[in-house]
């Protein structure tokens, strides 16, 4: 368990798996002797929020809930957006490049190569569509909801919209992005002829496993923290606008 008093360098040394989180908070290395809370303050990051996310990331049994409800929806939405950026600009292109290199130098048949490439390309398309739908529709809606509920008199147009839409609809349609990546790993481990470049293959499998874990945590946070809180707020807003 990481605390605000821990030296940041110690945190990273003990838990290098936390590194993918750092760009999301815009935290740069070169910590010196600074403690977690000093590093966060220096980079204008909410320390409690960082700790909550980092500890959740380390604990497989962690179910997000109480801890994260202390933060504004804006904080949570910003974190989700920067996690999306991490996926689209770093994680996904990273593994994609490795997969292509692996295939380029493999002795797989043309059809086998086409199978993997086709699979990854389709996956990437679905992935990007999923994320852009969230960023264009869902996240702006949540921010607007938070803004409206802070107003003394929420705008009637927004209340009207609320009557016909709820975040629960989004939850129903919310697809799990990690499943296909597990299939891809299984395909490589079990079914394709072995790759000669075991080292690179190992990196690909490692990347896939890390991304799967990250996506599971991310979806859990959206479904278990974000959606219930947004649903609460929707209800509250509807009730105060139409007192029974």
């Amino acid at each position, binding site marked *: 368990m990481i605390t605000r008093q821990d030296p940041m360098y110690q945190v990273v040394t003990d838990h290098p798996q936390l590194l993918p989180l750092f760009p999301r908070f815009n935290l740069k290395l070169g910590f010196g002797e600074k403690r977690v809370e000093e590093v966060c303050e220096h980079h204008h990051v909410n320390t409690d929020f960082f700790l909550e996310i980092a500890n959740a990331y380390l604990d497989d049994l962690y179910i997000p809930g109480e801890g994260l409800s202390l933060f504004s929806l804006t904080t949570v939405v910003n974190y989700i957006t920067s996690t999306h950026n991490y996926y689209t600009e770093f994680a996904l292109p990273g593994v994609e490049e490795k997969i292509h290199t692996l295939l380029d130098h493999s002795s797989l048949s043309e059809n*086998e190569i086409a199978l993997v490439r086709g699979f990854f390309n389709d996956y990437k398309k679905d992935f990007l569509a999923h994320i852009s739908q969230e960023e264009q529709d869902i996240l702006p809606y949540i921010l607007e909801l938070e803004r409206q509920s802070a107003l003394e008199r929420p705008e009637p147009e927004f209340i009207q919209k609320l009557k016909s839409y709820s975040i629960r609809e989004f939850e129903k349609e919310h697809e799990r992005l990690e499943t296909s990546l597990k299939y891809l790993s299984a395909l490589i481990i079990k*079914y394709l002829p072995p790759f000669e470049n075991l080292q690179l293959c190992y990196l690909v499998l490692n990347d896939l496993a890390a991304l799967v874990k990250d996506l599971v945590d991310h979806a859990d946070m959206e479904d278990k923290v974000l959606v219930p809180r947004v649903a609460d707020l929707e209800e509250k807003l509807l009730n105060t606008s139409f007192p029974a």
Partner: protein
Amino acid sequence: MKKAGFILVIDSYLVRKGLVSILNRIPGIAVLQEFHNSESLASYLLKHSVDFIIISQSLFEASADLFIRDPALLEKTVLLKDGRPGGKKRGDSGSQAHSSIHMSEEKEKIEGKIQELLNLGGLKNGGLDSVELSPRETTIVRLVSMGLTNRQIADNLFLSAHTVMTHRKNISSKLGIKSVSGLTVYAIVNNIITIEEVTSLPA
């Protein structure tokens, strides 16, 4: 064969570690997680699939609600009792559990009981996922993986194109996979089709 996944919910560190060391020597077993109390048990079970739970008497009693709510869980539960076998006491709670181990029992006896559990369990040698497709849906996934169009599938199975479309929609929403390439890899990984069948098709 798929390993049987065990979790241990035992308050005593020494007892827990002792049991882990016994379990780790039996082939076909994976100890997935150890708990020293039952606090995060419910949330763990929501997220992970488990074949057997070995739980100490006191923690079983402390989390009785969980087991009452889910009878399927009881089926998987092995109770770790403090006393000697046979000695009934304290209202014999948890007698509904699948089986039990007694703290005083010898290693061989415990191993025997675990082995019995594995044999009875008859764990299915399933694919990667627990989502169940119907036999008809499985056939359709297979045909899609072989590169057939919806029209061709309809002709093949004497169905209307509309029915095939409905099946395809249901498959996609069950699996969360829409693309043909996605379904193909799903089919390979779940042993619905072999990779040779897929890759030997003309491109």
